[in-house]
């Protein structure tokens, strides 16, 4: 009954588990599945739920401090669930570093009988159609990511981002306004309402760097920002800054990388 995700069966199951074991804190991933489930479970349990957290902490009195971007991603806020249990939160995928595998786990697996019957579940899954474009889901796991923002000015100029990504063997992405304009599909969006990335190198072209975007890229090992506005917030968290027009720089950068990374050039430098 739990083979395919369905809100009804999963809500019933998770609510039952919470009522049995009474946890202080209940965390779920802020994925399409996790958000669908968390909202339903929190309302069924009549407790608080903080969405899409980027940072979690536990205070000395055991209360959960859940931090998330707010006001369309221009500020951060820390939210508590004071008098209700469990304290619930959904957490953005990829915002936390992956922990090391422990040799002797202290947690144990508990089997919990649900006593649910299929006849009680109204919604039926008729089919599941897997995504054809597998590459799009790689953005979150890519080592190199190139992304463009509103500073590029037009859909045509966004091609410059794709060209650089192609030469680097990188994934390409964008900031939210480009998705809202319909220039780029939403699965390419990087930021609070899009993907969180942790690449070794992130090149942001014409992206101003609102918090909405920042929370999606803070885990990058190196952030290179190209922007005409020297006061753009992205320069507050980038490692390297180039104050120039990305539209003019990108073709030159693509060409320079192409030369630099070609085996021919490297051999010559090596000799």
């Amino acid at each position, binding site marked *: 009954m739990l083979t395919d995700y369905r809100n009804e069966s999963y809500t019933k199951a998770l609510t039952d588990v919470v009522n049995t074991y009474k946890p202080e804190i209940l965390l779920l991933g802020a994925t399409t599945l996790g958000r*669908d489930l968390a909202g339903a479970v929190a309302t069924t349990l*009549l407790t608080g739920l903080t969405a899409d957290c980027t940072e979690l902490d536990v205070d000395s009195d055991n209360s959960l401090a859940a931090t998330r971007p707010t006001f369309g991603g221009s500020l951060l806020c820390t939210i508590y669930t004071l008098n209700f249990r469990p304290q619930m939160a959904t957490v953005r995928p990829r915002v936390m570093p992956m922990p090391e595998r422990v040799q002797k786990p202290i947690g144990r697996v508990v089997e919990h009988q649900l006593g649910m019957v299929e006849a009680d579940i109204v*919604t*039926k899954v008729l089919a599941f159609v897997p995504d054809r474009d597998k590459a799009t889901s790689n953005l979150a796991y890519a080592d190199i990511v190139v992304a463009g923002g509103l500073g590029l000015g037009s859909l045509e100029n966004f091609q410059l981002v794709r060209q650089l990504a192609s030469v680097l063997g990188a994934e390409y992405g964008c900031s939210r*306004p480009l998705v809202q304009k319909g220039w780029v599909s939403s699965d390419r969006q990087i930021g609070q309402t899009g993907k969180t990335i942790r690449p070794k190198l992130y090149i942001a072209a014409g992206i101003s760097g609102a918090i909405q975007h920042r929370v999606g890229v803070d885990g990058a090992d*190196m952030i290179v920002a190209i922007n005409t506005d020297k006061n753009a917030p992205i*320069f507050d968290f980038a490692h390297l800054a180039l104050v120039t027009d990305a539209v003019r720089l990108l073709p030159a950068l693509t060409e320079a990388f192409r030369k630099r*990374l070609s085996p021919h050039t490297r051999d010559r430098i090596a000799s």
Partner: protein
Amino acid sequence: MHIVVCIKQVPDSAQIRVHPVTNTIMRQGVPTIINPYDLFALEEALRLRDKFGGEVTVLTMGPPSAEDSLRKALTIGADRAVLLTDRFFAGSDTLATSYALAAAIRKVGSTFGAVDIVFTGKQTIDGDTAQVGPGICKRLDYLQLTYVSKVSSLDLSGRTIEVERRSEGGVQVLRSTLPCLITMLEGTNQVRRGSMINALTAARAEIVKWSAQDAGIEDIQKCGLRGSPTVVKRVFAPTPRSEKAKVVEAAGQPPAEALIDEIFKLRPKLETEMSDLARGF
């Protein structure tokens, strides 16, 4: 058939600025819009109405000025607009909001005809929680269908509905029953423009305005700040990285090459890794 579409009036987040000194939101002069995701929900509701007949009621909870968004929704083609407004609602989190909206939907059903489907956007652009849809749904005990990209069939006499919904790694095709709540994915339909005649009618249309009491809300303690289990303790601007970004100076060198030199100077291992990647390894 009676469809309710829940919409929210939100500040156009693209135009929000934070005061550089006080770190507070500068709301003044920021224009408000209908939450863009809700427009896809409204459009889908109007399409079903046009095909199967019936009525579309738009509902919003907010300050009296949210009337503007309701008139826009009427211009686009909704048949009726309900504004749920009361000072008791101030400070509502998602649990309290879903309590009030669910009560108002029950009242819409008893006043204007039984509700078959509630539509809303997948989330708002100001709160970004995606929690109010499922919240309303559970309180009404409707079937929950979130992130829907397509309503593929609707059988009003058999009370069944088939939808495609975005899931992880693919699309689920689901069959469920009415009444249900659907949250619509963005970009799933082309939102129609309201006609001039609609705009003129909408400007004069009467908006149904309900207080908490009018909407039949029984327990005012469950509304607003008092009815909200979550408490915002701290609002702050993110701290800049301790070191400012290093500005790349191109001294007699093309800027692109200067940038690449800097990248590889700071992260020497990247050059080999990127060469391998560029060659398709």
